[in-house]
């Protein structure tokens, strides 16, 4: 495979970018150099996550958001937009059918837009293993906004909250009662909530149930503000973040927007929310805090992968098989086996 020039990617060579994404996805020897070369130029793009149940209309919504941003920026230069659309890999064949582009045909022919479909390849958090690395390459390539559409997600696929600055959770009307809305998980990570298919009669009810849920969360003091996750999980030394949280009076109120993605109704307000959320993050230094948190988590993930790889190289295979068969025969518990294998 011919080598890919990172400088060409920076200059807007779309073929070089596309091949670089493949290199990263397949973890080829060159992928490391590419990421290293582009990383210093990253940190500028606004990463927007779009998640929600299968069939809630995520792709159609992404199509409308991108179209609106490209067409309605007035006299300014329209932002360059990249879209990463993740769809599931079959656990049986390892293949995948990636169909998100079907809903994004309005964006075809616009050189300011780059859409890449991605198979989850066994990852379970709603993204693929290399989605974060894709974001790095696209950010380094100079895209102003990177929209990441997750796998059709249910309740636990919340990796997007770590990766994106702004998370949009898409709900469709009639998808369960108010108990679903107070369960933990995907609704908690929303910075903006969209009730799509607002032309359906149940849409108002769904919006109302979500509103009640958010109000309850609010009065309980655990309003899903950006940065909340930081405080809980970051290890100690997050001085500036914590201080910030305490000083700050104004919290982000998650808006609930009724949208009909099919015809674009409600998109203008939604796009304004996306911009407003970015300003909010910047004004309260949360943009930086999110970056710190994400980079730390990315590093941890890389270390885990590398340790695993080193271990796999070092372990004697026959020994491993022996211990495994002991476990299968119930002669040894997996916990005990650890001592023998590490």
């Amino acid at each position, binding site marked *: 495979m011919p080598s890919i020039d990172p400088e060409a990617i920076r200059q807007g060579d779309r*073929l070089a970018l596309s091949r670089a994404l493949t290199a990263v996805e397949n973890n080829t020897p060159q992928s490391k150099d590419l990421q290293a070369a582009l990383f210093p130029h990253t940190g500028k793009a606004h990463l927007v996550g779009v998640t929600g149940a299968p069939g809630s209309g995520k792709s159609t919504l992404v199509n409308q958001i991108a179209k609106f941003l490209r067409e309605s920026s007035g006299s300014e230069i329209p932002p360059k937009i990249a879209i990463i659309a993740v769809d599931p890999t079959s656990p049986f064949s390892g293949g995948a059918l990636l169909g998100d582009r079907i809903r994004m*045909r309005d964006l075809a022919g616009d050189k300011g837009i780059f859409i890449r479909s991605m198979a989850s390849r066994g990852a379970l958090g709603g993204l693929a293993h290399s989605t974060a690395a894709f974001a790095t390459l696209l950010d380094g390539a100079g895209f102003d906004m990177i929209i990441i559409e997750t796998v059709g997600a249910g309740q636990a696929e919340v990796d997007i909250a770590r990766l994106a600055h702004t998370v949009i959770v898409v709900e469709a009307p009639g998808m369960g009662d108010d108990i679903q809305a107070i369960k933990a998980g995907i609704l908690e990570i929303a910075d903006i909530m969209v009730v799509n298919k607002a032309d359906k009669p149940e849409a108002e009810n769904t919006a109302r149930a979500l509103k009640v849920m958010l109000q309850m969360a609010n009065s309980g003091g655990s309003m899903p503000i950006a940065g909340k996750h930081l405080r809980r999980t970051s290890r100690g030394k997050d001085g500036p973040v914590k201080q910030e949280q305490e000083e700050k009076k104004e919290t982000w109120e998650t808006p609930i927007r009724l949208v009909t993605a099919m015809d674009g109704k409600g998109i203008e307000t939604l796009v304004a929310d996306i911009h407003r959320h970015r300003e909010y993050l910047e004004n309260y230094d949360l943009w930086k805090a999110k970056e710190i948190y994400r980079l730390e988590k990315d590093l941890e993930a890389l270390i885990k992968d590398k340790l695993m790889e080193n271990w796999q190289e070092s372990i004697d295979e026959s020994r491993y098989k022996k211990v495994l068969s002991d476990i299968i025969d119930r002669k040894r518990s997996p916990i005990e086996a650890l001592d023998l294998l590490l």
Partner: protein
Amino acid sequence: MTDRKIRVLIAKPGLDGHDRGAKVIARALRDAGMEVIYTGLRQTPSMIAEAALQEDVDVVGLSILSGAHNALVPAVLNKLHENSLDSIKVFVGGIIPEDDIPNLKESGVYAVYGPGTDTQTVVREIETAVNPERD
């Protein structure tokens, strides 16, 4: 370690609205472990070439039932060429008269499949086209 998957774009150029065949092929390729990008109906040759570029696919499959293959196929190949995507292998499926097949192959299509083709044949020939040495 690399984890390479064959990526295929299944596209329907032109104006016919029959995509059962395209979906059957897409599904069969998925089941064979490939990553299949399906773009939907009524794609122009430039849309197809652009999608092939962004998705960095190894293979493009064109499904045509309108009879316009003699115009559409060369147009797609031309657009791929303009995008420096000559390394992509292209096959065609649909209703293609026998007499037209030699010309299509001449223009750079590696296979033409008619109704009743065994999907395993399509899978096998993609694998051969992408990795000729593996044959």
